[in-house]
């Protein structure tokens, strides 16, 4: 069995003083908690996780990308003012909106083949989703992360610093988008279905923008 994560977090804090390691609780039934590593120290911690005698996490089975878009959080605060006439308190609700900035995340599932335990889930997070999308690569620590980090780079746009061969792996090199991001817009291609539903139904119901405009030339991409 792998040691409890709070114990491991304390051990990491003792081994790497001042390191940015957060224990992220999973409130779900699986209770698969994880460690969020700061980008500066993540590489050193990864090497420690691989080499430490009690852990020996020698196998990285899975690298996942997660896109967390900007999230609008509405907070409702209730304020009660006493009624001067002596009736029940008057309750007013104040709603405040704040935007939680989004980020991209790489999730690694680590196992130990030698000690037969796992998984330990570690995460690294980018600063934002647009220009500061660099994360440390774990390919020098676990070779099996190479193709999967390339996939995360391809589909999410996370740049892994220190990756030996960071190229797109599924889409072609000239491709500009990152299709697994939540805000990816797929190219328009005039799909027709006998029973439209979802987005296509909304498109079908939308009236033509300008009925008098000339039709596009044959084969032109709309």
């Amino acid at each position, binding site marked *: 069995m792998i040691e409890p994560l709070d114990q491991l977090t304390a051990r990491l804090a003792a081994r790497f003083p001042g390191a940015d390691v957060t224990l992220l609780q999973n409130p779900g039934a699986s209770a698969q908690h994880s460690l969020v590593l700061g980008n500066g120290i993540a590489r050193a911690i990864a090497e420690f996780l691989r080499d430490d005698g009690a852990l020996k996490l020698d196998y990285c089975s899975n690298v996942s990308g997660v896109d967390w878009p900007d999230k609008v959080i509405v907070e409702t605060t209730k304020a009660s003012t006493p009624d001067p006439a002596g009736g029940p308190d008057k309750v007013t609700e104040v709603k405040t909106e704040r935007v939680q900035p989004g980020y991209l995340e790489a999730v690694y599932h680590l196992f130990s083949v030698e000690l037969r335990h796992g998984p330990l889930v570690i995460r690294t997070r980018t600063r934002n989703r647009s220009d500061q999308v660099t994360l440390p690569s774990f390919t020098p620590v676990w070779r099996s992360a190479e193709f999967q980090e390339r996939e995360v780079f391809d589909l999410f746009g996370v740049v892994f610093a220190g990756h030996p061969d960071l190229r797109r792996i*599924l*889409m*072609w*090199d*000239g*491709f*500009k*988008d990152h*299709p697994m991001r939540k805000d*990816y817009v*797929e*190219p328009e*291609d*005039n*799909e*027709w279905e006998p029973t*439209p539903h979802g987005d296509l139904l909304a*498109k*079908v*119901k*939308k*009236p*033509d923008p300008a009925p008098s405009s000339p039709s596009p030339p*044959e*084969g032109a*991409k709309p």
Partner: protein
Amino acid sequence: MDMTPAQAITDEEREELRRHGILLTSIEELYNWGRSHSVWPLQFGLACCAIEMIAASMARFDIARFGSEVFRPSPRQADLLIVSGTVTKKMAPQVVRLWNQMAEPKYCIAMGACAISGGPFKRGYNVLKGIDRFIPVDIYIPGCPPRPEALLHGLVELQKKISGQAISGPDAPRHLRKDLACEFPVPEFGEHDLDPPHNPTVWQPPEVPKGDSPA
């Protein structure tokens, strides 16, 4: 002499002659008979439909009964392209290039839901919504994947189609006419999609019906 053998005598008379050991036929019939019973497919698989295609070629289903057992490893020697499986956008130029490298007369079978329309992956960012956007398809075989019997049925339908082709005149197939192109443009990788996303001479996008209640 204004007569062709098919018109000059009736089928009954021809059958009568055949009973006496005299075979009477036309060049067109002989030519199409030979072609339709030796359709050599390209040894080319894309996804799980290819497994069914392989099964059709083995002893239990035995595609050799229909003269198509010679799967050629080179497009230069093949007559039939069986698009057996999902065509990803990254693979589509290679499929069109293989089609261009095949010598005429050549035929194309779109096998399975993916090759016809993209199938279950239709809404994916990476899947071509049907190979008929780039090359002309002769036979569509629905199924996910189609059983080997369905592929054999498609092959028999293709044989019927070949047998019915005229060897001259305006109804002649592509390879016997000079005004039709036998080569199709290979799409290039664009920044967001294939460029062009379809071949307008082969496929036009259907009109999306507008209105409140699509029929």
